[in-house]
Each structure stands twice: as structure tokens, then as C-alpha cells.
């Protein structure tokens, strides 16, 4: 049980850390004075790594559900909804890793053109906002479901 608690805690805090880096990334992108590739990379790389590690920890701690073990919340009415929510959360984790990877690779390859092309900046901003939104949902789902 203690091992599971540690895994869940690390999983949630890693997602939260990724959220912080993504938030900082968005704040820098929104800066009217412009930005540089280095500052964007310094935020997108840790965000991706945090999400990736969190995903693998998620696999480890979610696996007991598929083996039929009980969750942390003992309330029967809440437990009844767990399998569906766990399934949704696991599904959301996969596109999140892909989104974070795409943001990072995009900055890596075209980060120095971010101030020149408005459309590229806007699409990067949209992508990172979606990634942040999904990360936030996953943090809260992680708290409400085991």
C-alpha cells in the first residue's frame, strides 16, 4: 500500500510539474516582446520528460486495477465508478505524451522562427494550451480516482 501511495504521489506531482513548465512556456510565448528558442526549450523539454515519466509510473500504479485489487477510496458509491474513470484517464495519458512530444520537437526544429511566423506561434500556443488543459484534468482525475 505504501509503495502505491508513493507511486501515485510521484505521478501526480510530476504531472503538476509538467503543468508548471507548460504554463511558463505559454507565458513566454504570450510575451509581446518576443522570445527565443532556448527559453522555450528550457520549458518544453522538462514538461515532456515529466509527462513521460508520469505516464510510465501511471502504468505501474494503474496495473493493480486490472488485477482486481481495491482502490484507495473505500466509499462504495465512488468505487462503483472507478473502472470507467480509470479507463478514460489511461486513454487521456497517451495523447498527452504525444502532444507534449510534438510541442517539444516543434520548438527544437523551428523554435528560432517563432517570432517571425504568427501562425506558427498561434498553433504552438494552441497546442501547449490543450496540453496544459489535459494535464490539469489528469491531475484532478488522479486525485479523485485512485
Amino acid at each position, binding site marked *: 500500500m505504501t509503495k502505491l501511495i508513493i507511486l501515485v504521489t510521484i505521478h501526480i506531482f510530476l504531472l503538476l510539474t509538467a503543468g508548471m513548465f507548460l504554463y511558463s512556456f505559454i*507565458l513566454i510565448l504570450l510575451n509581446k516582446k518576443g522570445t527565443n528558442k532556448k527559453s522555450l526549450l528550457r520549458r518544453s523539454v522538462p514538461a515532456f520528460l515529466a509527462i513521460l515519466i508520469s505516464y510510465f509510473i501511471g502504468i505501474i500504479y494503474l496495473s493493480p486495477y486490472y488485477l482486481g485489487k481495491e482502490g484507495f477510496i473505500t466509499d462504495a458509491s465512488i468505487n462503483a465508478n472507478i473502472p470507467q474513470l480509470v479507463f478514460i484517464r489511461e486513454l487521456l495519458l497517451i495523447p498527452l505524451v504525444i502532444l507534449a512530444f510534438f510541442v517539444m520537437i516543434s520548438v527544437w526544429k523551428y523554435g528560432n522562427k517563432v517570432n517571425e511566423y504568427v501562425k506558427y506561434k498561434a498553433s504552438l500556443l494552441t497546442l501547449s494550451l490543450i496540453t496544459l488543459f489535459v494535464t490539469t484534468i489528469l491531475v484532478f482525475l488522479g486525485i479523485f480516482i485512485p
Partner: protein
Amino acid sequence: MDIYSSLVVIHILGTILGVGGATFIEIFLTKSLRDGKVDATEGGFLKITFIIVRIGLVLSLFSGIGFLLLYKFSDQAFRIYNPVLWAKLSIIAVIIINALLLQAHKISLYWGSSLSLVSWYFAFIIGALSQGPFIFYSYTDIIIPYILSMIVGAFVLERIRIFFKKTTQ
């Protein structure tokens, strides 16, 4: 020091930095905008204060999520469903979104400064009193006074700015 006490210390520290920072941003802004523009020195002070507020936000968020996890693991899940907590989380969400809107210049200073200051003070008051009388309040009991305070706050802050601008001229 146990986990709960550590979280309380971090959460209080985050709130102090957030509330203090938001207050000083208002003071610096009022002082800076007396002549209608923010010069390099004033801009430097504002930049540092923004960083302090963000550090406060990060500390508050991490410790806040820590509290939720602690409640979950110690079989106190009922605390997570408390409407007061949800009201506080909504106010924190307003602080986060407001910072993005201010950075993108998509919100005026009139609303932006009030949203920031009133939200930080409300989050602080709810946090400080959540173990006392606030525990029985509903979501709307907190959110309605919050919205009203924000409207009044925007008006008052604007009047203060105009007052100091007039006294300088």
C-alpha cells in the same frame, strides 16, 4: 515535522508571497503610472514582484495538491468534496487564467489588477478560515461575494490610481 505540518508551512509561505506580491504589484503600478508610463527601474521592480507572485502560486499549488492527496490517502475523501475547497480552487483558476490574459494584453488593467488582488485575498481568507465558520458555506456563498468584491475592487483601485495621478500633476 510530519507531512501535514510541512504542507501547512509551505502553503502559508506560498500564500504570503502571493498576497504580498499582488499587493506590491498594485502599489508599484499606482506609483509607476502617476506619470502615465513605466520606466526601466519601475519595470524592473514590477518584473521581480511578478516572479515572487509566481513562486507563491507554485508553492501554494504544490502544497494544495499535497493536501488533497493526503486527504485521499488518509480516508478523508469527504474533505475533497467540500464546496469551500471547490470555491478556493475556482479562485486559484481565475488567478492562473488572469495572469495569461494580462501577459497576452487581452484584459484591461482595470479588471486585471482587481482580479489578481481580490482573488489572492479571497484565497487567503478562505484558507485561513476554512477550518472555522467557512466549513459550512456553500459554493455560491463564497463565489457571489467574490464577484461583487471584484467589481467593487476594480472601481476602488481605479479611483486610487486617478487620485494619485491628480496629486502628482
